[in-house]
């Protein structure tokens, strides 16, 4: 990029409001539409930010101290990595320094097992030291960076199936915490945060397309069944809410799966 282009951009950093022409509707079934393949899975903090606007939640209650037992199954390790990072986001929301420090260490351990320790080390160290200072915005940013760094590194190493499993693990951990918080303190208004059928469909599609070698082990049969189940549960009814019964089921299904991943 040349300097002139950058200077023009910098001068143009002053925003001006304007209206733009755009079609009022688009036919999403139009075969000529071009969709960007890449999906970005929301991080738990995005969802917690919305729930907190309805009233302060006790996020500390959603933190669970689980021991990580590593084995040679890299697919399970990838899911564990996603789960641990999501646990980190919960710890940030709960402002629990000790939990975040422990998660920083777990992140390093898992990154080592996935073969990407060097890329993550700087972020993991920053997570631990920033948590010690109570610098929560930095911890949050470093957790997101850790997650993204691992995804980028895996893409670089052509470990694409592991990328999907890290994303799936992260989403699962966040959904478990959200459903558990809603189960403890149900409100129709808050329940709509679980309205994610299209996202579950995307995750399910990505999971189903993984090669069989990436889904070895009983826990992956459970992943498949749980995603099927969640797709039907995670949609709002006519009132725009997800019933308390469904929230409880979502909480149970996600919690069972998370436990199985840790314990398998």
């Amino acid at each position: 990029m040349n300097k002139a282009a950058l200077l023009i951009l910098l001068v143009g950093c002053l925003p001006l409001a304007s209206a733009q022409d755009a079609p009022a509707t688009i036919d999403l079934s139009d075969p000529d539409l071009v969709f960007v393949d890449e999906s970005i899975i929301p991080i738990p903090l995005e969802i917690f930010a919305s729930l907190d606007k309805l009233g302060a939640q006790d996020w500390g209650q959603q933190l669970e101290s689980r021991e990580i037992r590593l084995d040679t199954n890299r697919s399970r390790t990838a899911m564990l990595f996603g789960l641990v990072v999501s646990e980190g986001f919960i710890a940030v929301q709960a402002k629990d320094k000790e939990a975040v420090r422990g998660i920083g260490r777990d992140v390093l351990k898992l990154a080592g097992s996935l073969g990407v320790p060097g890329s993550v080390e700087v972020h993991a160290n920053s997570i631990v030291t920033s948590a010690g200072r109570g610098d929560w915005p930095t911890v949050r940013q470093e957790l997101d960076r850790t997650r993204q760094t691992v995804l980028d590194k895996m893409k670089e190493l052509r470990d694409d199936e592991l990328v999907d499993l890290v994303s799936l693990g992260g989403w699962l951990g966040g959904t478990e915490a959200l459903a558990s918080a809603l189960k403890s303190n149900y409100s129709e208004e808050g329940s709509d945060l679980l309205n994610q059928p299209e996202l579950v469909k995307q995750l399910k599609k990505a999971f189903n397309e993984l090669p069989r070698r990436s889904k070895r082990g009983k826990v992956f049969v459970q992943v498949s069944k749980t995603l099927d189940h969640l797709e039907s549960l995670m949609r709002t009814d006519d009132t725009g809410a997800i019933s308390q019964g469904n929230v409880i089921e979502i909480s149970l299904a996600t919690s069972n799966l998370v436990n199985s991943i840790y314990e398998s």
Partner: protein
Amino acid sequence: MRVRSLSTVLFAIAISSLVPFFVQAEAESVTAESEKTEPPDDIKLLAQSAALPALTGKNPFILRESWWNGTIEPGKAKLIQAQLFRRNEYQFWFAVPSVDAGLNLNIYNGEGELVPSETISYDATNVVSARLAPELTGIYYIRISLKTTVKDSQDWAVIYGYR
């Protein structure tokens, strides 16, 4: 807009934060020239520099580390699917390298209906932004398009933040 009143200070921050990039851009110019494409991270940086004012202050947006990129032809549009949550506010930034480029960024709900959003354009037309507060939790489509003010396809980057 409140951002405008802060722009002088933030402009200075933007410049200072980009000083290392000037050096880097200079060093990389040969590579970029020979490959005839802009490294994707540089385009992301264009979007980030435009985002800077929204990421500071009393109620800043929190920028996600994940982002989308690709290539787009003049006169064409692409759709990015994103799960958004009610009660949050989101802002998206769309950037391409050519300063002659004209961009559109609009947001549609899961039914394909245009949703009201605040479009923010800049003096430089190769970055555009849109801000919205979704009325419902669900899937939304970010529609990006490149006007025919340029002849060549453009690499692009879209970043987003929430609060």
